[in-house]
């Protein structure tokens, strides 16, 4: 069975590499629609990594919420704001070289720190299986308050988004 494990390892690293490539696409492509599609790919790839980390529920939520809803919203707005077939104009500002230098510094710094730090990995945690039921119990028990707060925020933002995007009083906002 080691071979199968090897396969899955290869699969995970390949997914990671692909996700990084698509992430670069998100920030570097000129056509915004392509960027959004790359982001969708990144999100799906991350969901796959979640599955590999035994967080299937989270993966499903990620796809449902991010890809199904947020991405649709993003693409919708892109469609509304970009002209169909319009020429792609310069998408980056002049901070780009500075940003690259600074960020590579941060990456190197944090990366070395990450590699140097001894991360304690407990065997109990490795064995622990998170079922949907235990997640639900935690949400409704330990984290009931944050959960409610989140729902209030969601409602508030829903109303806020509609109010902001609304054109004038006589017309309906996007649903």
């Amino acid at each position: 069975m080691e071979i199968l494990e090897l396969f899955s390892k290869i699969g995970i690293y390949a997914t990671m590499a692909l996700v990084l490539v698509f992430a670069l696409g998100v920030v570097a492509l000129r056509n915004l629609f392509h960027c959004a599609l790359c982001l969708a790919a990144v999100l799906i790839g991350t969901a796959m990594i979640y599955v590999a980390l035994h967080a299937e529920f989270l993966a499903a939520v990620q796809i449902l919420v991010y890809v199904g809803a947020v991405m649709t919203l993003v693409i919708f707005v892109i469609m509304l704001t970009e002209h169909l077939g319009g020429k792609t104009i310069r998408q980056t500002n002049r901070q780009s070289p500075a940003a690259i230098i600074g960020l590579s510094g941060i990456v190197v710094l944090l990366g070395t720190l990450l590699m140097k730090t001894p991360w304690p990995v407990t065997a109990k945690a490795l064995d622990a299986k998170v079922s949907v039921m235990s997640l639900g119990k935690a949400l409704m028990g330990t984290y009931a308050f944050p959960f409610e707060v989140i729902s209030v925020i969601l409602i508030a933002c829903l109303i806020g988004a509609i109010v902001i995007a609304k054109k004038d009083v006589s017309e309906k906002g996007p649903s």
Partner: protein
Amino acid sequence: MIIPLQHILIFSLLLFATGLYGVLVRRNIIGILISIELMLNAANLNLIAFSKSTSLAPETGQIFAIFVIAIAATAAAVGLAIVLALYRVRKTVYTDEVNLLKW
């Protein structure tokens, strides 16, 4: 865990850095918003990875990730609504063209 924790952390660091780069250099507001989604994603990945390896209650990481996803969705909704409103008034979605600090 199949792959070592460090690798996941490095991966999420790279993802985060890419997202941050996007936030810093993008002119288009929608571009900035989707780069922020990238960063949030990297953070989520960290949460999951840590919850798999530490002795906290195993649900914690996932639940926080779910919260993050919910917040990200609200952020996207409000942000995009603002973009739409801005576009309607200014006919542009480029940050450096919206520099009047007024509507």
